[in-house]
């Protein structure tokens, strides 16, 4: 009995060793991937949402609470995307470091230019996000802001490694510069797509294509038969370049639309890890752009 007690005591005392890595908890896979790109071997990254999951519909699982408890920093998307579980998670974590207002509570949306802010909304309009469109990660400009923000936060959390993080940021930015040159050759200008959810607005803005309609009648509300009928009619007339959705939902719906209208359906991997070869944000963007062409 005594031995067990001592073992437990040792476990408790050494659960946070002095030279530990910075524990990062990221809500979404792409956030975790950016944090790894900057922190590399100096950080341990835990991602809460799986790439196969709908980021809108996450439950505060006990294992997530445990992860949040051990976090030095919690990095999240913001704009109400995590409203269903993150406030609960932060409170239940009993972790002072990640409470709102602390360095360890990092809302990435503060580093981007938010579009589609709504002044007056109610839920008859569906699951709208009044603070703006929260799906902003498919944009090089936004990612640049976010990755700088993450670097800044890591530097203030772990000043000893600041130059390491800054070097990694420079590497990231150099790669981004290269990639942007490549992506500039991708011509999506003037293309018109139908999207399942308001997921591609920032991408459309950056690459000059248009989202001319949505399969969801209202955000977060599956479409009614009548609405689909109307949509099919408009699509037959206007002949858009494709119907796009993310990997976690809407596939059946867009496939049936595609059959009815002859417009091709495109499933876009929405996050890092949603397809086997997508192991960081760059390969995510590569794949996204390739699938839109």
């Amino acid at each position: 009995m005594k031995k067990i007690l001592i073992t437990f005591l040792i476990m408790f005392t050494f659960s946070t060793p002095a030279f530990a890595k910075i524990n990062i908890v990221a809500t979404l896979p792409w956030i975790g991937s950016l944090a790894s790109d900057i922190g590399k071997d100096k950080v341990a990254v835990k991602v809460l949402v799986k790439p196969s999951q709908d980021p809108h519909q996450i439950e505060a699982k006990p294992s997530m609470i445990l992860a949040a408890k051990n976090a030095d920093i919690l990095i999240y998307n913001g704009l109400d995307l995590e409203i269903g579980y993150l406030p609960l998670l932060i409170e239940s974590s009993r972790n002072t470091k990640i409470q709102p207002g602390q360095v360890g509570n990092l809302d990435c949306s503060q580093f981007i230019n938010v579009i589609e802010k709504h002044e007056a909304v109610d839920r008859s309009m569906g699951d709208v996000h009044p603070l703006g469109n929260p799906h902003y990660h498919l944009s090089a400009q936004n990612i640049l802001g976010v990755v700088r923000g993450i670097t800044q936060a890591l530097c203030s959390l772990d000043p000893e490694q600041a130059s390491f993080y800054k070097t990694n940021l420079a590497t990231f930015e150099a790669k981004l510069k290269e990639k942007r040159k490549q992506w500039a050759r991708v011509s999506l200008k003037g293309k018109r797509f139908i999207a399942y959810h308001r997921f591609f607005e920032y991408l459309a803005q950056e690459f000059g294509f248009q989202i001319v309609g949505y399969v969801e009648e209202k955000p977060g509300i599956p479409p009614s038969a009548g609405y689909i009928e109307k949509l099919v009619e408009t699509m037959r007339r206007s002949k858009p370049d494709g119907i796009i959705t993310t990997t976690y939902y809407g596939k059946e719906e867009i496939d049936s639309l595609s059959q009815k209208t002859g417009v091709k359906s495109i499933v876009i991997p929405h996050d890092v890890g949603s397809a086997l070869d997508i192991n960081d944000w760059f390969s995510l963007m590569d794949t996204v752009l390739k699938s839109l062409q």
Partner: protein
Amino acid sequence: MKQGIMLLIILCLLALSGYALAESEIESRIRALEETLKKQEETIKSQQIMINELKEQIKKDEVAIIPENKEQPTETKKETKATGLFGGSALSNPNISLVLNTYAYSSNLTTDELKNRGIFGYTTEGISRRNGFNLDAAELAFFAPVDPYFNLYATIPVTEDGAEVEEAYFVTTSLPEGHQIKAGKFKSGFGRLNSQHSHVWDFVDNPLPYRAFISSDDSGIDEKGLQYTYLAPLPFYTILGVEILQGENKTLFGSDAAGGAHAYTAFAKASLDVSDNATILFGPSVITGKTKTDTVAANTDFTGDTTLYGLELTYKWKPTKYHGFKLQSEYLYRTQCGNLTDLNPGGTVQRLDRNQDGLYIQGVYLWNRWEFGARYDALGLFKDDYILAGVKQDQGRRPWRMTGMADYTFSEFSLLRLQYNHDESDVTGKPNDELFLQFIFTIGAHPAHQF
């Protein structure tokens, strides 16, 4: 004459030369002007080239590393933007939500029969539902951080009888790692269903063991008191908790069992992710306190001590938003000893020992926006001792019930549920066949997706 001509020629020459002189001056000025213009043009051109180059540069350099001093604006930006974490609301307003829980009910029994339908040997408390339309409550909930140290929650169900404070408590947010204190009036951490609000349950009503041991309605152990919980630094989720409660729960303790706080609980809950999509949560709970109640048997008063033990298990498998399965079960065991006073004329005081148990097990299958569920609950499964003055009494039939349920979720904020119960908990064997059609709506602040 010659002289005159010469003079004229000289004059002419002079004039011409003067003209020529003037002309050359103007020309040179014009030339100078032209040159200046040319120079200016060139400057403009070169400036334009520079501007163009700069533009190109800016375009190219959007990716370049920002100098130190440029990091400043991002920081100021940070403070002015709402985080969206708590709904981004103005400070003057807490988050407010209203949950309407209403249902239509039909039973083969009359409303009076329902009111008198206790569970023999367990409780005399009946069912307070009425045939026809019922309003469970319009439940107001408020929550917001108080300051960097506390969060505050209040739940105020408004019923036809008026408003009551179901919960009003604060939770600490800045105690050292792992520790947390909750105080005020709150739902005890005892058990699974007990710590949840009835509108997040998978079924309309509470199962038989809850009715027999915890509360005849859906209120549960909802007490004034203080709770301390500790999230243990273990590799898997383990939470340990203790509570000191006033102990006024009607079924468990009676509303005036003791002069002060007399109920104590302890509980532990552990959780493991068995796979990427599956999680289990399990743990034991115990609550103990003094009891003074008139619900043991008709025309009696009971004074004594009660201890209730609980074991809970929840398994959830949810690979996608629209597909999943939940299995939930709780086992409750109650020991009670004290004096039972017969209130009839010439009645006696006898020692009563009750050791009884109960169990429910329920499964819910999620398919698209539908959920289909089944539940079985029973009392006296392994233990059913009702010992009056040392003599074990005959309890008759074992109370049990079967339930089937289907619900449809329009959106995260609205739900329609149909439920059928076949209840065999009556000692005379008269079943209670119940049908519910329930509506639950939420408006206001976004509800938390608790596990």
